[in-house]
Each structure stands twice: as C-alpha cells, then as structure tokens.
C-alpha cells in the first residue's frame, strides 16, 4: 500500500498543512425513513484545492453533497463555512456562501431552453424601468449561454433548444456549465463527466484546474480513479456513510483507493 490513511478521529488538518477549511462537514447523519445514508460523515475542503470524494455506489457521496449544498438538512452533525457553523436551510443559502453544485441527477428543467436553464434563478433583466418590472433580457442570456458552452466545448443544436431534446452528455454539459459560470468560492461536482465525451471531459478537467488556480476550491465526485489521481490534490474516501480514509493524491495508487472504498485491504482489483 502506497500511503497510510490518516487517523479517522475527525480532526481537520490540511494534509499540506495550510490554512483553515473553507467548507467542512462534521459528524453528519442523514436518514431516509429507516435507511441511514450518512452515519457521522466528516468531510473537509481547504482553500484552492481539488479534493476528490470517492466511494462505492451507495456509500453516501451524493447525500453528503446534498447536505453540503443545502438540499438536505442534516439530521445530526454540522456544516461549517470558513470555520463558522452554518445552517443551510435551502440551496439559496449555500449559493450565497459561494457554493455552487452540479448534482448527479442534474436538476435541470426539461421544458426550459438551454439558456434558460443556465441562467435559472439568476436571470439577466433588461436595464431601466422595464427591468425593474422583471422583463428578461433574452438576448444577453443567449449570448452568455453560447459563450459558456463554447468554452466547455459543448455542442448543442442551439441555446434555445429545450433541455428535453438533448442527448445525455449534452444535458450534463449544461449542468456543469451552469455551476462553473456561477461559482465564486467552492464548486461541487457530483460525477460531472460520467456522460461526457473524451474532449468535453478534458475541457471540464481544464476548467477545474483553472478554477483551483484562481483560488477556488473544487469537490469532485468520481468513480474514475485515473481521473481522480490526475486532477485531485487530495482524496477523501466515504464508506458506509462515514469517512474511511484521507490521502494526499500524489502518494496513492488506484489500488489503495479501491481498498479504502471497499474496506478490504486484501482485496485487489485488476482495474488499470
């Protein structure tokens, strides 16, 4: 095994030893009826890093992310932003704290156009009194949407196409573009490249790097270990709703990660 996972005592220390966490989950418990999806999960995001959150299917990654972004209220435990405990009772609170999220289920409105989805909740209004009446500036939004999608190498028929008519990868591109446009502090990406083509995936990873270089923090959920090792600075592993391990990314191998995810140090995968 390439790296020893650090102790699971929940103390938040930057593995590189720098700074306070910008976003943190401590002992979060989340139940759905009789299913306990999170059972005291800890998670830490430091400034200007790419941290990968990995774990087996059903480990609780998406649930953890939803508590971090205000979609679910945790049943126990707390969320901290810049060291201060916060209560995100709605996704708006998280957004106001600069946390932007791409959800695994995408959360796009099928009947609305690509442009409308990109600007949903943040519409550009006309200037002047008409704008104060809530009049939309469609042209500006179409322009902005086209630019943003171009940057990500997304190829869609037109920004006025309803989302319902897009291919799986195109839908995901729109969701990723939306988060990336608006993020100011932390971007959380729940399997953002699962449906993307090779080129689009590379573009997203580029954007992630640039975001980090610009001082933002990025949380990346992915099942693609080579991708994780390529882009992440740090890796946190979730297993059965709890943090199972933390690694600096430059000191681990895929096998270490798989072992931590499945909880079997004797179990090896022949995965590349």
């Amino acid at each position: 095994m390439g790296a020893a996972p650090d102790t699971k005592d929940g103390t938040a220390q930057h593995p590189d030893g720098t700074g306070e966490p910008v976003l943190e989950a401590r002992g979060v418990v989340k139940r759905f009826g009789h299913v306990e999806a999170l059972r005291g999960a800890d998670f830490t995001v430091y400034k200007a890093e790419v941290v990968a959150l990995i774990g087996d299917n059903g480990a609780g990654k998406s649930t953890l992310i939803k508590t971090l972004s205000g979609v679910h209220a945790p049943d126990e435990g707390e969320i901290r932003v810049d060291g201060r405990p916060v209560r995100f009772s709605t996704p708006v609170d998280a957004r106001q704290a600069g946390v932007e999220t791409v959800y695994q289920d995408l959360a796009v409105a099928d009947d609305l156009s690509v442009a409308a989805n990109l600007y949903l909740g943040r519409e550009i209004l006309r200037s002047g009194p008409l704008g104060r009446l809530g009049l939309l500036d469609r042209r500006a939004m179409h322009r902005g949407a086209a630019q943003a999608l171009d940057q990500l190498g997304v190829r869609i028929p037109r920004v006025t196409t309803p989302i319902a008519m897009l291919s799986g990868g195109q839908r995901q591109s729109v969701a990723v573009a939306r988060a990336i446009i608006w993020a100011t502090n932390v971007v959380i990406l729940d399997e953002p490249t699962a449906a993307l083509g090779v080129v689009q995936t590379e573009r997203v990873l580029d954007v992630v790097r640039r975001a980090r270089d610009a001082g933002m923090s990025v949380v990346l959920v992915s099942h693609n270990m080579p991708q994780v090792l390529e882009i992440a600075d740090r890796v946190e592993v979730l297993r059965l709703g709890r943090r199972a391990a933390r690694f600096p990314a430059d000191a681990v191998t895929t096998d270490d990660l798989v072992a931590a995810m499945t909880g079997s140090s004797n179990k090896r995968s022949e995965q590349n």
Partner: protein
Amino acid sequence: MTTTVEHAADATRPGDRVRERLSNALSELTAATALIVLIVALSFASPHFLTADNLFNIGAQTAVIAIIATAQTMVIITKGIDLSVGSVAALAGVVGAMAVRDLGFSLWAATAVAIGVGAAAGLVNGLLVSVARIPPFIATLGTMSVGRGLVFIITGAVGVYSLPESFQILGNGEILGIPFAIVLTAVVAVGMAFLLSQTRFGRYTYAIGSNLEAARRSGIPIVGHLTAVYVIAGMLVGLGGMIAASRVNSGQPNYGIALELDVIAAAVIGGASLFGGQGRIIGTLIGAFLIAVVRNGAVLMDVSIHYQMVIVGLIIWAAVYFDQYRRRRLESRG
C-alpha cells in the same frame, strides 16, 4: 484551442428557424384551425352568426371564462390546478354586490373588494399548496367547498339584488362601441401573456412546473412564488366573478358551479399540460373561444341541449386529437 461547433443538429437549413417558430406556435394553431373551420362553417349555416352584434355577444359572454382561464393556465403551468374558481368567483361577485348595495361602495371600489376577495382565496390556496404542501387538487377542492359554504352563509342563500344601474357597467358597458368586458379580457390576456413569456416571474412559473426540485435548487423561492401565482390567479377570478355579477346585475350564490371544468378544458385545448411546464395564454384564449363558439352556434341553430352536449364533447375530442396527432407526426417525422 477552439473547437469548431459543427454538429449533426447544427446543419439545419436556413428556413429552419422559421419552422421552429412555427412549430412552437402550431399547438395553438391546431386549436386555432379548428376555431376557424368552425367559424366558417357557422357563417354558412346561420346568417346571424357573422354579425358584429353576435361576435360582440360571444366576446362578452366568454369574457369571464376567458379571464378565469388565463388564471387557470398560469396555475396549470406550475403543475397545479384550481378547482375553486367557480366558488371564488361567486364569493367575489356576491361580496362585490353587497358592497355596493349594503355599504354604498362605488362600482370601482366594489370591484377592488371583489378582487381582494379573490386574492384572499388565492392566498389560502397558495399557502395550502406551497407551505402545507397539500396537492393542489385537494387544496382547491377544499377551497371550493369552503368558498361555496361562505357564499351561502353570507347571503343566506339568497341572491343579492336591487343593485343600481351603474353596477352593470363592468359586464354590459361599452367603451368606444366595444363591450367593456371584451376590453377587460384583452387587457388581462395581454398582461398575462407578457407576464408569463417575458418576465422572470413567468420563467419561474414554467421552471417550477417543469421540475420543482430543479427550481428549488436553482434558488427560486418556491413558497413565495407559488403563493404569488395563486394570489394573482385569485385576483383574476375575483375580477371575473365581479364581471359575471355585473352582467346579470346581481350577486348569484349559485354562480360558477362546474366553471372549473370549462376553464381547465380551455387551457388544455389550448396546449397546456396538466403535468406542468407547458401552456400559453394565446392557446387558452383560443380554447375558451372554441368552446364558446360551439355553444353559440348550437343555440343559433336551435340544437337542443341534449345534442349540444354530444356535439361539445365531440369537438373537444377532435380539437385535442388533431393537436396530439400533429405533435406526434412532428416529433417522429419532422
């Protein structure tokens, strides 16, 4: 590194933007086609049909339904439904009439009161749907029952009569020779079409109906917005109730029974989907007039109510069938 955005779907011929626009409008066009066919047929069948008087009559007769149907359309777009429109219109009408008769309010003040009554009912609906999260069907079914009960309680189940002549202006007055009710309908329709298609408010309305969870995660204030939608709808229902009362110069406790079916039918014939996210005001207007013209034509031709019911049913089926048929063809063949 720039990518040439070249793509199967991009290589559309130049006329395609126009075709897309057209296809967006086609849903209404189907109903509109049905309407036009009907109008032409009736013009031949009855010499009285295509007269200014009759058309104004139809317009004024349909005003209330059309106004309330625009409200219903907005609610339906949010994936909601408002069954309480009939009761609330009756409540607004009798309260407005009582305000004039018993409190000496002017017609305009009474209209404001009626709209206020509608707004209050809408607020109840909105809070039940958004805060208490009761399904709209049940929330507004309750309001329908409670509203009608209140009408009976405050009127003692007796119509509100003995209103001054001026009370009729809203429903029977004219402005520049055009029935006031028609002018009001046009103003409401334009306003609602603008609100839904051009403003952020409208965008949120479609977003909520299309995917509530996505709307929530996008930071749209669901509770506030849904409440506002029902309140605005209620205000229009209140206005409609007042026009209805004005047209018959009295507050009628029994007004609007089964009205919800007519207005929902108008919206759906016009292309709205009860599963949310879809619907347009122009379509709804066409739907409302389609029903109204069928009924008008039936009376002009002295078709007995028995056959009228059969005919109305057949035409509703036909209008929506052709719409569905066209959409399927469009989807699968271009």
